[in-house]
Each structure stands twice: as structure tokens, then as C-alpha cells.
């Protein structure tokens, strides 16, 4: 079991190092295959661990394996240790499985890019970092993985570094993530200070004896890290900009894996969140706000990838909602199905973008159904799964979260209402996108790129992963049907170290069915409205200029942050430059150079160029030395 985990962790790292070390001595295609195979090797490792774990009883499914003591300071020890339990194995399977498909897809998508080798080395590095995050056996290693995925995300968003907008987006993502990382590190410092350990089991046990203030502080720090990484309000503005990266990167990092790390963190650290119920409620509330805000903003976006990015934020909002309310199994279930259908949507969008020579503006698209029928079907299935239409995967997972919200009392009902409104929005924005891009008359741009079906809708490396994910998006939800069978929930039970029960809330069967009817109904209403406006065009698009402007500016979040943080910061640094840097530091350095120059000039006067002067100077010096020696004796 642990051997599989180590294979899973190290294979992508070897892939990244190999590509880096071999450099230009291998072809770009070889580098791509090294990367793909390394990620699939990781998937094999995860499978080994999974199969091994299935054969064991519930009590024996947890193993910690330590390679060596990585860090020791006084009483504090942190080992390079992996924790293999059902939760981490689930994440390993998702990360390496979906990751492998996406890296395979990249072979076709990135074909011909002059810096393909760098891309694939980064991709392997990302998968390694993400596996490090989910396999970490203590909070310190988790933070290492947390930081590394941030780095890989930065490198890949800014992969096309000749575009200034990509570089700016990469920096933005890095800075906002660094904010979350710092908050998390502070939470860990409090843990070390108060409990003396960062090992999961020991830290959770120690957290039980802490005062409420400290527990709240720790939970708040963890939540800040989760919010930054998962692009939840108020640290969400980096995710839409991150769409500057290549599309497979958006699919892997900004949809399927990295952005869901926040959910994983909450589930992994759930004993702490249970000790701090107010912070857990805050997490659920932030999730609810995000799912609404992102859903509304997605309605007016015109970039195909940005619409999907806002949809990702919105769906992660659902996961936060579930995890914050204690429905960990359901949150993780939605994480898994979301990884399938959101990666599918991104990759289908990537096929469209690839087909249209990198055009991403949906206003220039339309009527792609004739040119790309199979992509249309994949996109349709992904969209239906996203909206939660039965029997596709999103239906089972989203409804289970909403049912848990309904079951958890007054505050939960409020969140339940928000979630239902989100379901309506999801139907609306998803099918707005689908109808605009695929239905109607082919636009000028589409006709221009219609090269017949000479080479299909893309190379096989791109279409095969899309096909596999289409199947997964359909069947992925069948592992858990609310009220009937819960193999996924039972598999995750006990959800994390040292817990006996799975979820804090358990909806009744009635609640399950009420939720399903309402959510599916609202989703269908959303689809119907989208059809009337964008499909059949019987209704005109409602236009309220002020609302539209507000939404197009994404509720002025960027402007607000500029006004509150960026501009004052710039003003202060300008003042410091004019008041401190230039007169004091610059002035003193200038004084030193000027003094040195003048001294050198004066000394230069002594060098007359006359041989006799030098000879006389030597003779005089010798005479002085002689006099000195004689008088000293």
C-alpha cells in the first residue's frame, strides 16, 4: 500500500527531472511522452494503493510511512512522511487519473509550441506537487505541497511569457496565493506553539485541549489558505485571470485539482473545524456567497474559458458549503465528479479554441455544431452534468450537498436557498455558453476555419481523453445514490485520522428527494430560459446598463482592491522613494563616489610623469627610513 503511494509521488518528479536533465537532446514529442507516462505511472501507483486498501478492513486502511526525519528542532520533529488513507487515495486517484488524461491531451494541444519541453516539465512538476499535497503525512509537508502547486500554477499561467497579460495574471495568482500560504503558515505556528506538533493525529488531539480563541485562530488561518487556493470570495480575483495559461493547464490546475485543494484541506483538518463551529459556518457562508456571485458574473462573460472559470468558482462554492456544514463525504464526492465534468468542459472548449486558431471570444463563435458534432456532444454532456440533470454525475453530488444543507437547521436552510438559486444560475450560464457557441448559424470566423473534416476535430491525443472524460462525467456519479447506496461515503469513512463518524449531518430520504426535485427543476428552468434567449432567440437579451456594467467589471472587486491596497501602497512607496531613497540612500552613495573621484584627482597631481620626481621620491623615502632606523636603534 505504501509502496504504491511512494511510486505515485515520485514518478512525476522523476519525469520532470528527466525532461529537465535531458534538455534538447530529446525531441519535443519524447518529452511529452515522458511526462505523460510518468503521470500514468503515478496513476498505477495510486491504483495499487487503492486495490490493496480495498482488501483490508476499515481499521487497517490507514498507514503512515516515514522516509526520514526531515526537520528536528528541540521537541519539534517533522518527518518526510506520507499518510495513506481512503481520503488521500481518493485524491491520488483523481489527481493522477484526470492529470494523466490532461497531459495526454496536451500532446495534441501544445504540438508545435517552441517551448514544449518546458511545458511538460512544469506539468510533471505540478502533478508531483499536488500529490505531495494530498499525500502529506503532516501539516508541514502539506504546506510544502501547497506552496509547490502555487509555484507550478504561477509557472504555467505565465507559460506564454511573451504576453504581458499572462505575466500579470501569473503574478496576481502568485501574490494572492502567497497571502493564503502566509495565513496558513501562521496557523501552523500557532499549532506548533500550542500543541508542539504538526502531525495530523497528534495535532488534532492536541487541538482538543486548546482554548476557543486558539482553535478559532488556527481554523481561520487554514480557512484563509483554503479560500485563496480555491478562489473563493474575497480572494477569488486571480482565477479568471489565470485563464491566460494554456487550456490544458486551466483544465488540470484551475478546474480539476489545485483549486479544489481548499476543500481537501477543510476535510483533512475537519476535527479542527468542528472545534471551531463559527469558522466552519464562515466557510460554508463564503462558499454560498461565492457560488451566487460567480454564477451571476458568469452570465455576462464573453470569453469561453472565463465563463467556465467562474463556473468552477461557483462549483467549489458548493463544495465549501458542504464541507463547512460537515457533509465531508458529499463535498469530496462533488470534488470528484466536478473534476470529471469540469475537465471535460475545459478540454472540449480547448478543442473549439484549437479548431478556431486560438479564438476565445464567444461573440465571434456560433453554429459550431455542424463542424464539430462530437465536441458538441461532449460539451453537452459536460454541461448537463454541471447543471445536475439526472442521471449524469453532477446530479448526485450537487444534490447530496444541498440535501445536507437542508438537513442542518436554520443557517443551513439559508445556504440551501442560496444553493438552489445557484442551480438556476448554473443552468442559465452553462447553456447560454453552449447555445451561443454551438447553435445558430455558423459565424464568419467559424466558416473561415471550416477545413472540412480532413483531420477530424483534433488529433487522437486530444479526442481520446475527452471521450474518456465524457464517459466518466456520465457514470462518475453512480457510485453514490442518495438514500439508496453509499459506497463512496462508506469508503471515506472514517474520513480522516481519528474520527469515528462520517458526516455531522445526515439528510432524511424525504429531504433528499425534495432537494432533487427542486434543484433539477430550477436547473431545467435555467436551461429553458437560456434556450428562449440564446437558443431560439424568442426573448431578447435583457439589458440593464448599470447592472451589466457592474457584472462586466466582476462586481468591481479588482477596482476595490486597487483602491484599497494597490494605490495606497504605490503612493507610500512613491513617498518613500522621494523622501528616503533618493535623498538619503542615493545621496550618500553619490557623496561617496564624488569624494573618491576628487581624492583620486588630487592624488593624480602628484604623478608628474618626470622620472626624476619619482627617483627623488624613492631616494627621499630611503633617506627617511635610514634616519628612522638609526634613531630607533
Amino acid at each position, binding site marked *: 500500500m505504501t509502496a504504491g503511494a511512494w511510486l505515485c509521488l515520485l514518478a512525476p518528479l522523476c519525469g520532470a527531472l528527466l525532461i529537465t536533465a535531458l534538455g534538447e537532446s530529446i525531441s519535443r514529442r519524447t518529452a511529452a511522452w515522458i511526462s505523460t507516462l510518468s503521470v500514468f505511472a503515478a496513476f498505477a501507483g495510486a491504483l495499487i494503493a487503492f486495490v490493496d486498501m480495498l482488501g483490508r478492513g476499515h481499521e487497517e486502511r490507514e498507514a503512515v510511512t516515514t522516509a526520514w526525519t526531515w526537520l528536528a528542532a528541540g521537541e519539534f520533529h517533522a518527518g518526510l512522511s506520507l499518510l495513506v488513507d481512503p481520503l488521500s487515495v481518493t485524491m491520488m486517484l483523481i489527481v493522477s487519473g484526470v492529470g494523466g488524461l490532461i497531459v495526454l491531451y496536451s500532446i495534441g494541444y501544445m504540438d508545435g509550441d517552441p517551448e514544449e519541453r518546458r511545458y511538460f516539465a512544469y506539468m510533471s512538476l505540478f502533478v508531483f506537487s499536488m500529490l505531495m499535497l494530498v499525500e502529506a503525512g503532516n501539516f508541514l509537508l502539506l504546506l510544502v505541497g501547497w506552496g509547490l502547486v502555487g509555484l507550478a500554477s504561477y509557472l504555467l499561467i505565465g507559460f506564454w511569457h511573451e504576453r504581458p497579460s499572462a505575466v500579470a495574471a501569473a503574478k496576481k495568482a502568485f501574490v494572492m496565493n502567497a497571502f493564503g500560504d502566509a495565513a496558513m503558515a501562521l496557523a501552523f505556528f500557532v499549532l506548533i506553539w500550542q500543541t508542539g506538533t504538526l502531525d495530523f493525529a497528534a495535532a488534532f488531539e492536541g487541538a482538543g485541549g486548546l482554548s476557543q480563541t486558539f482553535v478559532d485562530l488556527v481554523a481561520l488561518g487554514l480557512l484563509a489558505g483554503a479560500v485563496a487556493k480555491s478562489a473563493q470570495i474575497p480572494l477569488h480575483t486571480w482565477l479568471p485571470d489565470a485563464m491566460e495559461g494554456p487550456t490544458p493547464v486551466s483544465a488540470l490546475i484551475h478546474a480539476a485539482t489545485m483549486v479544489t485543494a481548499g476543500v481537501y484541506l477543510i476535510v483533512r483538518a475537519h476535527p479542527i473545524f468542528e472545534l471551531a463551529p463559527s469558522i466552519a459556518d464562515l466557510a460554508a457562508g463564503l462558499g454560498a456567497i461565492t457560488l451566487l456571485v460567480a454564477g451571476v458574473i458568469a452570465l455576462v462573460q464573453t470569453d469561453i474559458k472565463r465563463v467556465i472559470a467562474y463556473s468552477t468558482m461557483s462549483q467549489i462554492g458548493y463544495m465549501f458549503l458542504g464541507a463547512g456544514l460537515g457533509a465531508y463525504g458529499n463535498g469530496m464526492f462533488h470534488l470528484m465528479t466536478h473534476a470529471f465534468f469540469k475537465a471535460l468542459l475545459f478540454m472540449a472548449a480547448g478543442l473549439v479554441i484549437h479548431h478556431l486558431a486560438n479564438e476565445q471570444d464567444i461573440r465571434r463563435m456560433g453554429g459550431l455544431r455542424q463542424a464539430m458534432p462530437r465536441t458538441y456532444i461532449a460539451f453537452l454532456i459536460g454541461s448537463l452534468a454541471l447543471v445536475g440533470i439526472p442521471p449524469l454525475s453532477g446530479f448526485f453530488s450537487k444534490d447530496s450537498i444541498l440535501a445536507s444543507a437542508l438537513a442542518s437547521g436554520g443557517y443551513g436552510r439559508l445556504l440551501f436557498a442560496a444553493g438552489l438559486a445557484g442551480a438556476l444560475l448554473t443552468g442559465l450560464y452553462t447553456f447560454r455558453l453552449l447555445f451561443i457557441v454551438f447553435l445558430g448559424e455558423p459565424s464568419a470566423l467559424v466558416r473561415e476555419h471550416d477545413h472540412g473534416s480532413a483531420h477530424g476535430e483534433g488529433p487522437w491525443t486530444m479526442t481520446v481523453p475527452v471521450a474518456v472524460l465524457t464517459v466518466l462525467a456520465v457514470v462518475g456519479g453512480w457510485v453514490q445514490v442518495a438514500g439508496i447506496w453509499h459506497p463512496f461515503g462508506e469508503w471515506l469513512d472514517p474520513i480522516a485520522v481519528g474520527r469515528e463518524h462520517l458526516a455531522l449531518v445526515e439528510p432524511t430520504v424525504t429531504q433528499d428527494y425534495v432537494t432533487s426535485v427542486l434543484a433539477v427543476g430550477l436547473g431545467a428552468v435555467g436551461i429553458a430560459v437560456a434556450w428562449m434567449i440564446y437558443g431560439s432567440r424568442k426573448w431578447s437579451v435583457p439589458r440593464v446598463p448599470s447592472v451589466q456594467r457592474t457584472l462586466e467589471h466582476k462586481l468591481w472587486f479588482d477596482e476595490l482592491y486597487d483602491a484599497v491596497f494597490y494605490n495606497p501602497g504605490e503612493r507610500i512607496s512613491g513617498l518613500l522613494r522621494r523622501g528616503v531613497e533618493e535623498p538619503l540612500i542615493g545621496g550618500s552613495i553619490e557623496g561617496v563616489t564624488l569624494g573618491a573621484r576628487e581624492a583620486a584627482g588630487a592624488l593624480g597631481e602628484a604623478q608628474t*610623469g618626470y622620472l626624476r620626481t619619482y627617483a627623488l621620491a624613492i631616494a627621499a623615502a630611503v633617506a627617511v627610513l635610514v634616519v628612522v632606523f638609526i634613531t630607533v636603534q
Partner: protein
Amino acid sequence: MRGPDVSWYLIVSAILFSIGAAGVLLRRSPLIVLLSLEIMLNSANLALISFARLHGNHDGQIFALAVMAVAASEVVVGLGLIVAIARKHLDLDVDRLRVLRG
């Protein structure tokens, strides 16, 4: 020990050294300056050898041989420079060769 006392040798050496130093300081032809330098070196040799005789060992003599070798090399370089200057039809006057002034 026969012959004059060692102090006589040292007096001759001092006189030679002064003559050489004066030549280096006062003359303007580079050739003469080189010659004066040789005189200074040889006065030092004389002093070394007389001390060697005073102490009854050969250290000073060996040192004098080394000084001769250095002097020979120095003359080669110096004369080479002078020939080069003459070939360029420059004035053979140390006061005019002052491009290295600060």
C-alpha cells in the same frame, strides 16, 4: 686580514652610490640614467662583497652574483626600450617622456 680596512671599501661604495644617484636624478639622457643605475648597483655589490669578507662567509658573494644577473637583465630591457624610442624618432630625453603623468 690583509689590505685596507673594510670601512674603506664601504666609503668607496658610498661615494659610488652617491655618484650614481646624482646621475639618475640630474641627467636627462636615458642612456646616462641607465649607466648611473649600473653604478649604483655595482656600489651595492662592492658593499656586499666587503661585508662577506668581514663576516668570513660567502652569502654576500652569492647575493652579489644575483645582483649582477638582475643588472644584466635590466640593462637588456632598458636598452631595448631606448632603441625602440630611438626608432620612433622621439627625443632621447627623460623629461619629455612623461605621458604617464596623472
